[in-house]
């Protein structure tokens, strides 16, 4: 199946990530158009497009930009969050490797709109190849006069740098990222104040996801209405999904929001391998609650459907759990991950993630009895909505979901281990 691609427009072309290919596909024309527009008009346009942040939370981008206070002569910053760390997510990596100039153009427009003359692309440390691609793209853009001072005579100044942390999941949280960029330990900051008012170096800062920026040139060029032709009323546009599991064709797919999950699995990805069956689907990265097979039948890939089904679209990382996988082991991988990645700042997350991990590992070791299953739920329940950032929630949701959907299976596992303590 082929879909019209906005973000992955150059995918598969020769020299797909070079500036020449990007320019040949109409690249860097949106910024020229934007440069002639009023800043407020751009914000209104982005608002009208209904673009929602693609990093996971789905916050309306135009609204986020509108929070930035007017110029006061001091610097403001624009940051591209390319610290894609949610297990199962690999779409921003793909964009970085396929279409890095689109990120830069999106940032240029964003920078002009919010009045930021300095931008950073913050990539996760493990993206060593893609960091090279991004640095190359930044170099090309400087050489072509799209970055720097008074670019193409428009009066717009925008300097762009690349930065990467040390590989912490938490640096994907925008204030954790800002702390890391400031050279501090990657820990989220207490809000309020929000980054739009006090962010990087305590100056107004906008942090958007890589994919979010990539939607901007299209919106500027074609307008909100064209953008809204894709997707649903509340979730307009296309979205990249990184889909993994025992599929015939796993990978990154750009499809309109509202696309059928089943269709994506069966048609685009060619269904499950070796006659395996779906046991559950993680629709939005490891932290998203599970969708059960009956839900998969009717699920559409948009923010509202996922919310209705008690899960979330998140970063668009779809992981297929098949009938040959062991849920206790999956739960262990999940709880180990969050215990490893909790920054340790807020008590419920610091202690709760460790507690969950220990309980699940206790089940695997055979030292925990059936009571551990309810306790996992209870502990997770009290981690939820109690912390500075959403990592605690991200750890709690899947734990609760595993217990809710597979509690009996986990108890049977404990039974088999012979521990009734």
């Amino acid at each position, binding site marked *: 199946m082929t879909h019209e691609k906005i973000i992955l427009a150059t995918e598969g072309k020769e020299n797909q990530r070079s500036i020449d290919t990007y320019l040949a596909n109409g690249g860097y024309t949106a910024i020229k158009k934007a440069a002639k527009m009023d800043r407020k008009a751009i914000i209104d346009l982005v608002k009208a497009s209904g673009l929602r942040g693609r990093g996971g939370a789905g916050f309306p981008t135009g609204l986020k930009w509108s929070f930035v206070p007017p110029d006061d002569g001091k610097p403001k910053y624009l940051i591209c969050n390319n610290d894609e760390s949610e297990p199962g997510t690999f779409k921003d990596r793909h964009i970085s490797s396929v279409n890095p100039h689109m990120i830069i153009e999106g940032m240029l427009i964003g920078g002009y709109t919010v009045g930021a003359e300095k931008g950073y692309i913050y990539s996760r440390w493990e993206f060593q190849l893609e960091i090279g691609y991004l640095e190359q793209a930044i170099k090309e853009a400087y050489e072509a006069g799209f970055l720097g001072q008074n670019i193409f005579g428009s009066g717009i100044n925008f300097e762009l740098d690349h930065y990467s942390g040390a590989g*912490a999941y*938490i640096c994907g949280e925008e204030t954790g990222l800002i702390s890391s960029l400031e050279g501090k*330990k990657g820990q989220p900051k*207490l809000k*309020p104040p929000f980054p739009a008012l006090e962010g990087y170096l305590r100056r107004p800062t906008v942090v958007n996801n890589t994919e979010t920026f990539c939607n901007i040139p299209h919106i500027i060029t074609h307008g909100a209405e064209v953008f809204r032709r894709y997707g649903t009323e509340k979730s307009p546009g296309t979205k990249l999904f990184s889909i993994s599991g025992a599929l015939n064709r796993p990978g990154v797919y750009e499809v309109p929001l509202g696309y059928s999950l089943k269709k994506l699995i069966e048609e685009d990805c060619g269904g499950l391998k070796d006659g395996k069956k779906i046991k559950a689907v993680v629709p939005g990265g490891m932290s998203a609650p599970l969708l059960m097979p009956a839900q998969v039948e009717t699920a559409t890939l948009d923010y509202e459907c996922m919310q209705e089904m008690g899960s979330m679209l998140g970063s668009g990382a779809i992981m297929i759990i098949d009938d040959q996988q062991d849920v206790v082991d999956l739960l262990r991988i999940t709880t180990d991950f969050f*215990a*490893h*990645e*909790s*920054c*340790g*700042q*807020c*008590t*419920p997350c*610091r*202690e*709760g*993630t*460790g*507690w969950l991990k*220990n*309980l699940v590992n*206790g089940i695997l070791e055979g030292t*925990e009895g059936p009571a*551990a299953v309810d*306790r996992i739920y*209870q*502990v997770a329940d*009290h981690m939820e*909505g*109690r*912390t*500075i950032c959403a990592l605690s929630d991200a750890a709690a949701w899947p734990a609760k979901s595993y217990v809710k959907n597979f509690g009996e299976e986990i108890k049977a596992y404990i039974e088999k281990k012979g521990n009734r303590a």
Partner: protein
Amino acid sequence: MSETVTFKLNGKDVSVPKGWTVMKAAAKEGVEIPHFCYHEGLSIAGVCRFCMVKVEGRPKLEIACNLQATEGMVVSTTEDEVKEAHKWALEFHLINHPLDCPICDQAGECSLQDYYMSVGKYESEMTRPKVLKPKALDVGDQLVLDTERCILCSRCVRFEEEITKTDALGIFNRGDRATIGTYPDKRLEHNYQTNLVDICPVGAFTSKDFRFKQRVWFLKDKKAICPGCSTGCEVDVYGKPEDSHYYRIKPRHSEVNGHWMCDKGRYYYDHMNPVGRLRKAISGIEGSRKFVDTDEAIADLARKISNSSVSDMALLVSPQYTNEEYAALLEFFVTQMGVKNVYQWREPTESTEDFDGILYRGDHNANTAGLAAALKAVGLENNIENQFDDLAKSGAKLVVALAPELSSTYPSLKEQINKLEELPFVSMWTIDGKVFEYPGINHAIPMKGFAEKKGSFIGHSGVRKLEQPFPAGNEHARDLVETVEALTKVMAHL
């Protein structure tokens, strides 16, 4: 008038200045919202997640420490949801805490213990082994750190960043392995370390000085003013009057010193303890020196005074006594008897104008200004130069020397006392037992310590009052007012 906002706290209307947090407003109202990381003297961290309150109309509970009170806001700290959140927040803090209260100095004044009694009282759900971390770390001259007891509230880190600006502490590693510690090659070296013991809500930081010495519930505390420098921090002195023993000094919140005090001040209880304190009066008037009752020594001195000519008498006065004491002393010797030779006992090495920018001042006397004022009141000049030399040259035959209470603030003390050796008769009024080591001292009266008397100092920021005296740790000790009173009585009958 600053703008005020009115909001409802547990059903009651509360008006506070705009910008106040719910935490601050609640404290003012006497509503206790449990907290660990919040400290009035530090920035807001919002990490312990204990101070959860319910705000009507908001889906999630909010932390009171970072929640600005706004007009019409309806806040509850008593709903079941809030109570449950408090209970669980406490449980999260306790699951990896070693619970070694029986050997922990903090026991009895530990936030974990107090909150367990007020919002906890549950059976722990924890079944897993606890995370183990380094213990008994020597992180500074004053401190021992137990990282297992630490609940990672980050108060100490913020203190280092914001108050002393020394940045020696950090939280290392992540998740439940997160551990408080010093940066590589860093050590706590400043003069404010023991404040970390105070602000640590648990027993992670303990004071090397106080460690394992006393259970806090056996101690009584009385308000006093630190005598160690001209700042005059408000403090609480902790002692066990039944044992005539003092154990520690802690700062008491005031405008003068905020929440803090320096480490030097922490030790100004030791001179009042039996070891090292002058336990009885000394009189050497009849033959060799011997310990005598204070009244007897005073009577001996009275006789000596009445047999001396006023011009042969001199006073040597240090600025570590109260205004009331100076008034009594100078009234007796200067106004009534007419003694003109009054010298000040000052430490020549001190630079009185020094200030460390936080609290500690170079004038290591609590009452320099008070002494100057008292001298002026009796028509004497406030000379401080060459006082010992002038005294030696004066040919005084009877000297009453009022020694500094804190010998440790006078590095030249020994040298100075040796200068008195040439004088025929020196009566030293002092708390310091080492007086007996100086052959030039013929007579001594044991003095009370600052925590044992009422009175006032004139510190850097004005009058500082001592109002809650302990009973004297030594029954033979007197303050100046009592000594002068006794002298007057005896003299009247001579």
